[in-house]
């Protein structure tokens, strides 16, 4: 895992270099895709994304030096701060007369909803760590978690941002599942959701969100409207074949048939040129990364560390799985980018935070071993 001591200073040799190299590999491949999406140019996407990528990687390395205990102590206060920021965004939006998702901090436009994805995991892990062992099968183990998930999810839904609300909910539910909440509740819940979906679609979702869901169910109904995204994306992936059309040879992306080819539909841009092999490479790379995360959780010594590591890995998993399913026409278009590959700083930041905390927990477990 680490380089031999003596040549490099210990803090640096302690970094899990293999997994960092994997992340760098995925990110670099993403830059190659963005280079092609811009028609063979570093601008406007690849160059700035490259800078962001390495900046956030550096941030992740810094986060990995933070002791696990700090995350456990800070989990709930951070959750509260971010929840307040979410409310602030909502209030700002109401004042400005429109929906707003970000706070302008000058150097960055911060989306609190994005930060909530790791924060909810940390807060719930902390909550279940503090919960006495015997309490897990009682109602007292469920309702506070429900409140912790429900508040931010509802605020994000108001923005309205279905994709992020779903990811916050999934992240929280994952912690609850791992914490040992009885399985029958999840099965019952899943059945309940299955019943609720038609009601949600008809009464809660916004017009455009409802349309996306309906069109997902039958994209051919609307080949030039919202269904256009899915159809063109499938054409890009399908026409790529096994080996792809070759670097810079994609027609769907270069001739603008594929909308959002550098952000949400970057996978389609990539697979048109790199084919099935490119797609399988990305799946395999993320599988290794997520598998490593689950491994970290297994090795973690504290309950907080275990729950956090597994749920943060799951958060990365949700990003990848929802995006890929959406791009390949298996899920509605909900606006979730492919982490480390799609252009944009927000998702990159979230994933790097997750990665940093995972490395921090990993470091803690190895230090404990050494004792």
């Amino acid at each position: 895992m680490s380089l031999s001591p003596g040549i490099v200073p210990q803090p640096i040799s302690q970094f899990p270099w293999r997994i960092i190299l994997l992340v760098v590999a995925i990110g670099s491949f993403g830059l190659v895709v963005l280079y092609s999406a811009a028609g063979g140019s570093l601008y406007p996407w690849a160059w700035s994304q490259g800078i962001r990528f390495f900046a956030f990687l550096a941030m992740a390395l810094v986060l990995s030096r933070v002791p696990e205990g700090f995350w456990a102590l800070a989990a709930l206060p951070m959750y509260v701060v971010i929840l307040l920021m979410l409310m602030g965004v909502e209030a700002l939006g109401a004042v400005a007369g429109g929906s707003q998702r970000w706070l302008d901090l000058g150097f960055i436009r911060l989306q609190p909803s994005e930060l909530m994805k790791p924060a909810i995991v940390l807060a719930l892990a902390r909550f279940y760590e503090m919960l006495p062992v015997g309490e897990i099968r009682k109602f007292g183990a469920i309702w506070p978690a429900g409140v912790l998930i429900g508040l931010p999810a509802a605020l994000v839904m108001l923005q309205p941002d279905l994709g992020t609300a779903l990811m916050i909910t999934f992240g929280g539910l994952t912690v609850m599942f791992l914490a040992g909440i009885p399985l029958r509740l999840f099965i019952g819940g899943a059945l309940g959701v299955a019943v609720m979906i038609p009601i949600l679609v008809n009464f809660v979702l916004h017009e455009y969100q409802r349309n996306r869901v309906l069109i997902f169910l039958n994209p051919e109904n609307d080949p030039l409207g919202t269904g256009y995204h899915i159809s063109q994306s499938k054409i890009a992936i399908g026409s790529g074949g096994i080996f792809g059309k070759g670097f810079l040879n994609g027609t769907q992306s270069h001739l603008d048939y594929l909308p959002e080819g550098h952000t949400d539909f970057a996978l389609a841009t990539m697979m048109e040129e790199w084919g099935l092999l490119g797609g399988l490479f990305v799946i395999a790379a993320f599988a290794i990364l997520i598998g490593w995360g689950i491994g970290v959780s297994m090795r973690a010594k504290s309950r907080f560390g275990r729950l956090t590591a597994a749920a943060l890995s799951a958060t990365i998993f949700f990003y990848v799985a929802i995006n890929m399913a959406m791009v390949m026409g298996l899920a509605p278009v909900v606006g979730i980018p492919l982490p480390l590959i799609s252009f944009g700083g927000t998702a990159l930041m979230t994933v790097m935070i997750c990665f940093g905390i995972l490395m921090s927990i990993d470091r803690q477990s190895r230090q404990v071993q050494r004792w």
Partner: protein
Amino acid sequence: MARIGEAAQTYSFSRRALMLGGVQGAVALVLAGRMTWLSVFENERYQMLAESNRVNLTLSPPRRGWIVDRNNIPLANNRTDFRVDLIPDRVEDKERTIATLQPILRLTPEDVARIRTDLKRAAGFRPVPVLENLDWERFAAVSVRLPELAGVSPTRGFARNYPLGAGVGHLIGYVGAASAEQLKEEKNPLLVTPGFKLGKDGLEKTLEAKLRGQPGAKRVEVTARGKLVRELATRPDVPGETVKLTIDAGLQEYCARRLADNSGSIVVLDCLTGDVLAMVSMPAYDPNSFSDGISQSEWKMLAEDDHVPLMNKVLQGLYPPGSTVKPMHALAILQAGISPQATVHCGGALQVGRRAFHCHKRGGHGAVNMERAVAQSCDIYFYAMARELGYDRFAPTVRQMGLGARYDLPYPSQRYGTVPDSAWKLKKYKQPWTVADSVNASIGQGWVLANPLQLAVMAARLAQGREIVPRLLLDKPHPPAPSMGIDPQHIATIRQCMWAVVNGGGTGGAARLPLPDIQIAGKTGTAQVRAITTAERRSGVLGNAQLPFRLRDHTLFVAFAPADNPRYAISVVLEHHGHINRNTDVGPTARDVMTYLFDRDRAVATLHELEPTWGGTYQERLAKQAEAFEAARAAARAAPPPPVPEDAAAAASNVASAAANATVPVEDAAASQERSE
């Protein structure tokens, strides 16, 4: 307890984490499977879709097939056409571009309005026509300024050209841009390609499939917004087929010019094969200006003309054939077993019931036999024969000679007239046939109606006794038509009768050929278009010269030559000519056309001598007429404030389709026949 609980919890966590990992792994497999499905199993389909996204086909109109005469002289061909189009997607500033083009191309406000409307409707790279049929100077002026005119595309294409102009207007028809209905009917992108024209009338319309050809195509790569990226490949067009007609271009032009300022028609047939050598209806529109998109005022002028230039009189004009049916009736009389030497006394009138039927010669012809009856066009002879035999014994012969028949010619509409008999009258009017009906029909009046083509067929069939069928397309070898089995003695008698009309002191002396060894045989005819009242008859029938144009008699002539072994048959029908001008009457016209067939130079010399008397060639007269019409309109406009042309451009583009509808096809001519007493 707590430690055991913690251990259990850790165990439970590991189990659930593995479960989670398992679910995640399963999802990964599903995603990988989906990828494989799309890119391997559906690869072909999506590759096709990607290609059809990427590649766009730009069509270039095919060169239209030529229409040539029997000697391969073009009647319709293509000339180079300079045109300017706009590619909407590449135009940066529409208004500025139009403003720049307007002075260079001398666009009218009508043009500008049309271009604006078209630009609003058009999208992407489908060109919008700006102006076609440009002269080289304007085309070059646009071409040199291209760098500042993004999206303007000057192209060299082909436009239809009719060397004989109005002389082939009704024979060939014309072409034009596809109408909305045609586009709905035939959903072919070629129809909206700028510069593409399809047949709108006449042969151009009926032979469309042969003449059109295959469009050329340019495969270009385009973006989702229709921007052109690069050209991939081009395929040249396949020109349409050449269509060869039986027409003799020289004769056709000669006939058109020789018709002078008449409203009339000439048909010339080959008596042996039925080949149509000339088929002229004048005055006619100029198909060149129709094909370029005729101006509103030119259209108005043609529509208002009482010489009906928009109607093809050869196939759609129905006339009482008058005395031209007499030789045919004479054949019927012969076939009824009556001797040509049998005589009838003509005293100027014949009493049928309470009505008196008059001969055109008030004093009467005295004793007339068949030859004298035909030569002098004695009405009483035919009245008497019809009264004795009944018209039902004439009608079969009349039909056999081709009246009332519809010929299979490539034209959208024909009117084919009426051969009346007792069964026909009973069916149509629920009344029995009377002797007066027979008497009327016997001189080609009453219900009898025929078009000029049928009269020419009649002359040709009488001349040779062959069952000729007129044909226009020279596509397969055509042997002489079979004999109809008429007694050669009878044919000889009819030829003799008709010879006498022209050469034996008959009514057709004016048609005598100026050639030493060739003689013409024919028959004159005059058809009244108004009732002559008893009072008028008493006070003296008004001469045609005193009557307005519309009330003058039609004059007709059918003939064949040489009289002893006929080769060519002709019919000349002049509407409302009334015999008021000798040079332009049927006799001299038929004479000159026949002369052309045997001694071209002599006929041309005669024409050059006569043409100045009626104002020159048809092109010159059409131009003068247009000028006068414009002047009159300008004068009329000067008085009241000029009306604002609301949608003038749209109106102009509708003219062509209106022209196609102007001649309403009437299949059952009896329904709308023009009665003549």
